[in-house]
């Protein structure tokens, strides 16, 4: 595997211009959608089969250092998890890990079973009715294989989205957290940068200005497939019970079986 690539989204630099969201739509030819009324500036409410980058507008009372309402911005995207629920769920092998460590869906293989949709801890994958396949951020697979960064990172005017080698970006991100803490942003923290942390680390990781829950992110997302052995053993236990019941019911009395 080549050196792992990553995207670092520093939400403290985001100005909510949505250049990333538009650049993503344009590069990936994602087409129009009917806008939604979300009660604020955010549009759309969720990732869709035509929205892979989504700037979230979060109004958080009391989250500013001085106790004021914080208007938080976060350009969200598929996390390209090191342990990816979508990838483990996919029965066709359409979802694969690239040599750069990113997670991609091969549109020519996906058969639209939608198990990945239910298996992403972040609600990223979306089903497209027209193609009958699952869609999500490709980490601009075509661009990174031609020496270009993702379209969103390229378009971002404030460098809120940075693209590069993961180890370098994590080092940079850690320094940035220290700077922000020094400026009084006491809740400044990285999300998914630690490769020893949840899901083996996210290859698209974030710098947040408040707790993950404020951004509607899970504090400690877990791999959905972690219980498959336990659940299977418990099912086998249930099978043994009903099987024994049936054997008792059908057994030839006196002979103890056939």
């Amino acid at each position: 595997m080549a050196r792992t690539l990553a995207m670092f989204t520093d939400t403290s630099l985001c100005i909510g211009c949505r250049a990333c969201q538009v650049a993503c739509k344009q590069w990936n030819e994602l087409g129009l959608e009917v806008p939604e009324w979300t009660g604020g500036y955010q549009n759309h409410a969720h990732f869709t089969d035509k929205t892979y980058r989504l700037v979230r507008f979060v109004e958080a009372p009391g989250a500013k250092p001085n106790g004021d309402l914080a208007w938080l911005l976060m350009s969200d995207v598929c996390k390209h998890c090191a342990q990816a629920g979508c990838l483990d769920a996919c029965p066709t092998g359409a979802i694969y890990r690239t040599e750069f460590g990113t997670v991609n869906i091969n549109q020519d293989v996906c058969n639209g079973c939608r198990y990945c949709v239910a298996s992403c801890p972040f609600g990223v994958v979306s089903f497209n009715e027209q193609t009958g396949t699952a869609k999500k951020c490709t980490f601009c697979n075509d661009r990174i294989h031609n020496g270009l960064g993702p379209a969103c990172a390229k378009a971002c005017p404030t460098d809120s989205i940075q693209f590069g080698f993961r180890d370098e970006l994590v080092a940079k991100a850690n320094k940035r957290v220290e700077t922000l803490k020094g400026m009084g942003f006491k809740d400044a923290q990285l999300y998914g940068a630690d490769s020893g942390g949840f899901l083996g680390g996210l290859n698209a990781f974030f710098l947040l200005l408040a707790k993950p829950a404020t951004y509607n992110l899970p504090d400690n997302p877990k791999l959905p497939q972690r219980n498959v052995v336990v659940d299977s053993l418990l099912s086998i236990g249930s099978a043994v019970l009903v099987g024994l019941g049936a054997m008792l019911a059908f057994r030839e009395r006196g002979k103890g079986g056939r």
Partner: protein
Amino acid sequence: MLKAPGWEMSIVWYFFLGGIAGGAYFTAAIADNFGSLRDRSVARVGYLLSLPLVAICGVLLIADLGVPARFMNMILHFKFWDPMSIGAWAVGVFGGFTFVSSVLSFTSSDSLASLRRKISLVGMLFGFFLAGYTGVLLSNSAMPFWGDSRLMGALFLASGASTGMAAVALIMFLSGGSAGEGWHKIEVADRFSMIVEVIVLGVFLALLGSAARPITSGHFGPLFWGGLVGAGLILPLVLNFFGGRVRALGAVSAALVLMGGFILRYVVVMSIQG
């Protein structure tokens, strides 16, 4: 933040009929291997019932795909830890077993009958699998409630057993085959399964606690408590005790169990689709 997969009625039917197919087959296999010669009618009904049901399951599974023509992609790619992948495999393999067992259920030759019994001992494992794997599939997703439930597979399996046996009993009743000793045995077997199901459901709810709210309260609450727990489990269990003597009560019990099995799949699948 999470996103539901959009699995709806065809998946509810798939889970329900798959449970019956698996349950009817392993019941037949057990009756065939451990019962008497007189239990062969039970075995034959079970084998013959599982064959069309698993065929319907295959059709439902394929038709629900976004690109049905690419169904083979999930057969060609084998992931042994992935319920969706081995599930698709198991439907196919199990279908083969139900076919062979159904054909051999008409034989009058002793050697073929003993072959059938041996085959069904292996096929039975796939029957158990088909009845239970759908629950494990749900409990290994990221969705709330589904992903929180460690006993979803065990519950679906017990329900597959009770509905499979109920379907066999109902067919025997309707076709006039409820006179013999086989009827009594299938009633007793179904009773065991219902008791297991009640216990598993109780532990399932206790372990989930408030995470079970999508089915225990709100829109689906009345259907869950009234349709599944009350009319689909407790009532048929009570009726079942009289079903040995008053056969019509046994048949009503079986019909209620089938209804309960459907409601179980329905509330579990639909409550998460928001």
